[in-house]
């Protein structure tokens, strides 16, 4: 044939190529390819596991945040109710204190008025007694009107009346 083309040699080359294809497929291509596929699959699986774990963690985080916000709301409610109760107690205590104070003041005022009245009454009684005694003395001593007056004032000046008042008081 032209160009030294030889069918037998072409077939020999083809046989060699098929042989090489089989050898390379079985000994090199397939094992390396399988290893790469297996590793890629493993990485894909790891990636999936990581994504799942991340999604779980995010879910947990959302739950936690929800719980935290609920607890904060509950806390705020409790604080508000406690504060309201405390305010009401405070007002009650203050009003009680006011009431007690006014009661004490009233009692003190009543006592003071009674004491005042008692002292006035006593003073009046004493004055009346002194006046009566003085009159009696004047009558008893029966002097002139001028002497009487003099002796009265003299006795007052000497403090007899005051002493008597103090002793009586």
């Amino acid at each position, binding site marked *: 044939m032209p160009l030294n083309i030889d069918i037998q040699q*072409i*077939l020999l080359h083809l046989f060699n*190529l098929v042989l090489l294809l089989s050898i390379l497929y079985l000994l090199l291509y397939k094992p390396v*390819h399988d290893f790469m596929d297996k590793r890629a699959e493993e990485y894909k699986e790891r990636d999936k596991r990581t994504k799942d774990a991340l999604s779980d963690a995010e879910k947990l985080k959302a739950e936690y945040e929800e719980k935290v916000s609920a607890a904060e709301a509950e806390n705020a409610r409790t604080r508000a109710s406690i504060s309201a109760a405390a305010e009401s107690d405070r007002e009650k205590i203050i009003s009680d204190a006011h009431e007690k104070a006014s009661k004490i003041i009233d009692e003190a005022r009543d006592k003071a008025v009674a004491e005042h009245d008692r002292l006035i009454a006593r003073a009046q009684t004493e004055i009346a007694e002194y006046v009566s005694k003085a009159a009696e003395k004047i009558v008893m001593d029966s002097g002139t009107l001028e002497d009487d007056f003099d002796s009265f004032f003299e006795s007052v000046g000497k403090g007899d009346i005051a002493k008597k008042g103090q002793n009586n008081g």
Partner: protein
Amino acid sequence: MDKKKRTRFIVICSCILAVLLVGIFLTGDPAKEEEPINIVMKDAVLHETAKVSFPIVGSVNPAVVSAYTVTAIILVFSLTVRLFVIPKFTDTPGKFQLLLEQAVGIFDDLAKSNSPQRNKFLGVYVFTAGAYIFIGTLFELLGVMVPTTNGGSIALPAPLADINGAISMGVFSYLVILSGGVAGNRFKGVLHTLKDFSLPISMSFRLFGALLSGALVTELVYYYITTSFIIPVFVAVMFTMLHALIQAYVLTMLTALFYGEVCMKEGPIEDGKIP
């Protein structure tokens, strides 16, 4: 090393190199002198005279031996890797594991991106083809000498620098594309594949031409003794290493592209997904 010792070392090396150069020029290969350049080039293309013996079938082109040698090298390498390296693979890859994973990953991605619906077999095929073209082309650099049937010796070329090797690669790629068409679209797929009937020819001769050009330039460079120094380094890099990469990429990319085209199912696009 002080200055005196360095000078002595350079002088000795220069003397040895000069003696060797004189020896090289004085002792030319008498066989090469008898063989004109046009014969050498023709033989590099057609392999009509330099045949090597092969078990069972007799004499064949040297590229057949290269092809089976490359397969044997790959087999030993794969077996070693399968037995001693792959069982020790870890989730955090080392340098060699990374290299293997990259090699498999690149061709797997190429198959997946070009044929999203059906790519398992395509991935294996482009991996094999890529490895074969790359390693086979670099194999040429080793310059493994084998005896020819006419009593001489020849350096084993790249398996795809032979027309039969290139045709087999092109035909095999076309058959893979056809199988994708049948698997994906049944009879329609066959028609789609047959529509590109020139594909095996273009694939074969693209490979053959690219690799042969490297082989011919290398032959030419080594034919003349004056160009046999330093220049082969650049020639090897340009025509072997770059071709190894470029041709591996081109053939695998084309195969993946056509495979994806013929096995794609036709129909309305629903919800952004191709049926």
